[in-house]
């Protein structure tokens, strides 16, 4: 510990008489335990009782689906900004007015670090962070989410979309 540029040496305080007795300290401990028993419980019975995160929560990134198609125009900015290189986008041409769409959109969830940069950079508000936090896989291949797993209707993402409009 430093003070006035000099090293100050502190010694551990010696135990007092009652502390040395030991028995008083035991009763102090038991008292704490007993008071906790009668207080309300904090434990969440997890698999049965799930947590619903607030809108600011950054769960796994998903693609917003509107009117049956993705908003994404496959500009590739999310893939470019992704610090973990988790996103792979392959664009293609569509007859739809916006010309361009992702024929392949994959997020490697093992690489994803949930930073939310993809959401921040997206010019179309097409990729957002969802509330989903339960992600387990049996293999590396399974962890690569394609469009089938990524597309989520905009109605289900209302919370997050409103949050983004408000705070961004």
């Amino acid at each position, binding site marked *: 510990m430093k003070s006035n540029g000099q090293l100050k040496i502190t010694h551990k305080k010696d135990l007092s008489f009652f502390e040395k007795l030991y028995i008083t300290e035991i009763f102090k401990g038991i008292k704490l335990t007993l008071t906790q028993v009668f207080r309300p419980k904090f434990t969440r019975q997890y698999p049965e009782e799930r947590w619903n995160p607030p809108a600011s929560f950054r769960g796994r990134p998903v693609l917003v689906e509107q009117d049956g198609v993705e908003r994404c125009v496959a500009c590739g900015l999310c893939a470019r900004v992704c610090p973990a290189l988790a996103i792979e986008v392959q*664009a293609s041409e569509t007859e739809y007015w916006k010309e361009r769409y992702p024929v392949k959109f994959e997020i490697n969830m093992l690489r994803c670090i949930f930073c939310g940069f993809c959401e921040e950079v997206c010019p179309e508000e097409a990729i957002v962070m969802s509330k989903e936090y339960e992600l387990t896989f049996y293999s590396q291949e399974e962890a690569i989410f394609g469009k089938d797993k990524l597309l989520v209707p905009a109605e289900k993402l209302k919370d997050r979309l409103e949050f983004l409009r408000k705070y961004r």
Partner: protein
Amino acid sequence: MAVITIDGIQYDVDPKLTIIQAAKLQGIKIPHFCWHPKLSVAGNCRMCLVDVGNPRRNRDGTLVQDDKGNNVIDFMPKLAIACSTPVGDGMVVNTKTPKVVNAQEAVMEFLLINHPLDCPICDEAGECKLQDYAYKYSVGQSRFEFDKVRKPKRVELGPRVMLDTERCIMCSRCVRFCNEIAKKPQLTFTQRGDHVELTTFPGVQLDNPYSMNTIDLCPVGALTNKDFRFKARVWEMSATETICVGCARGCNTKMWVRNNEILRLTPRHNPEVNDYWMCDKGRLETFKWVNSDKRIKAPMIRKEGRLMQVGWDEVAAKVASELRHYKKSEIAALGSAFATNEENYAFVKLMKHAGVTNIDFMRHIYQGDEDDILIRADKAPNSAGAKAVGVHQEGTGLGFEGILKGITEGTIKALYSLDEHIAYEPRMAAVLPKLDLFILHASVENETTTYADIVLSTATYAEKNGTFTNFQGQVQRIRPAVAVLENERALNGFSMSRLDKFGSHNDRWTKGLKRDARAIWRTSSRIAGALGAKWKYTSSEEVFNEMTTTLEAFKGMSYLKLSGYGMKLKTTITKSISVPV
């Protein structure tokens, strides 16, 4: 020489130049859209506005000086465009004063009024002049509150070029290119004011053999490559400087690769060879076979009528024993005008070692399929180089016709050919089944490989280092852009994209397909080893360095010296060059 002052620094420049040219030579960048060094001056984008002043002169022509003895400079009342204002002695040019910066910002604001702001969709994003300048020379705000002018999108201007009229900023580079370089006036503007539209003349398509250069010229995403549209983002690919193999011109190109797959070619500037241009055929038809499913993935030997994959040791030993088995006069060798100088050199050396004197290569001359712009009748990139390293040796052995005759008559029993589709020549296809032994270097499965007894899988021009010699004798470097099994992008000095740099082995987008194909100099060196030769090469550069000492024509060259625009062969191509064994 004229002395001009640009941004306070004096330069000695050629008085025939315009301000933008003079500035470019001095490394000063003046923003511009419509100006291009090889096209006429249009002066319509107004982006290159600069503040120009000339020294005040007396009636007798002497310069007026102030009290301190400095020349008095009269600035023009308005800004002038740097692209069409010629330099003059004593001229003062300001490119960074507030007046100029204001003008640049105003021009950018005007250009962006009707330009759609859909960069996420636009293919040009990343290599777009308008996008770059919007960052450098624009305030990033628009005061325009009204609807943008809507124009047709997805207009097919020709078989290879797509136009998005809304994105066009009317710089007229493409129009001028068609008129001046391709000499085929096919494009024009119609309407007036903000309704100006780029279009083809009635009944005409943008289909000249150089039409795709307009895509490179286009400073925005108005003209796009139909073949490459929406395939990849510019920043996802690596660009390798290499040479086009479409004809003997050897246009300098950039090869754009992602996930070990070639996606497009674009021309690269070389004033000696192709200027800024390349033909559409070279751009579209010289790379797709490199990605093809028909590529030969490993060396093969024919066993019981079928080609079976074998290892390199086995195949080298087999070739060596077969070469020993036949009499020297019964063997013929064919080099290739598609192989590099180094490969042909190593092949000639191997054949010398094996005692084979019947050596030549197949010509690919298509009389009439040429023009006086770039396209040559000789459709192989290295005919001059193959001659220069001695693949064609007059007098000492049989030439191509002689070999053909020899096979027909049965005097030639074995043929060893480099990577070449020789069955494409009908006379050759007719006699190939007569051969006892046909050893072939091949990169793609085709009719020729069906006749082969031994197939040595060969790296294509996109997968190896080397040099090509074009019809002018310009020796130019090719560089590997696609990795084969024996090399790694990071370890072998390939150009790399961000994905290549940071991807790991289990990422799907970094793996790509790697084939067990090798450059011919490497295989030749190995076979020579199996034949008991003392020499061995470990790199293409090593072969080239040996060539510079043994061949007069290549004296004084090195890979480093060739890395720019290339170098001319020292002597005119001699008839016969001796290669030491």
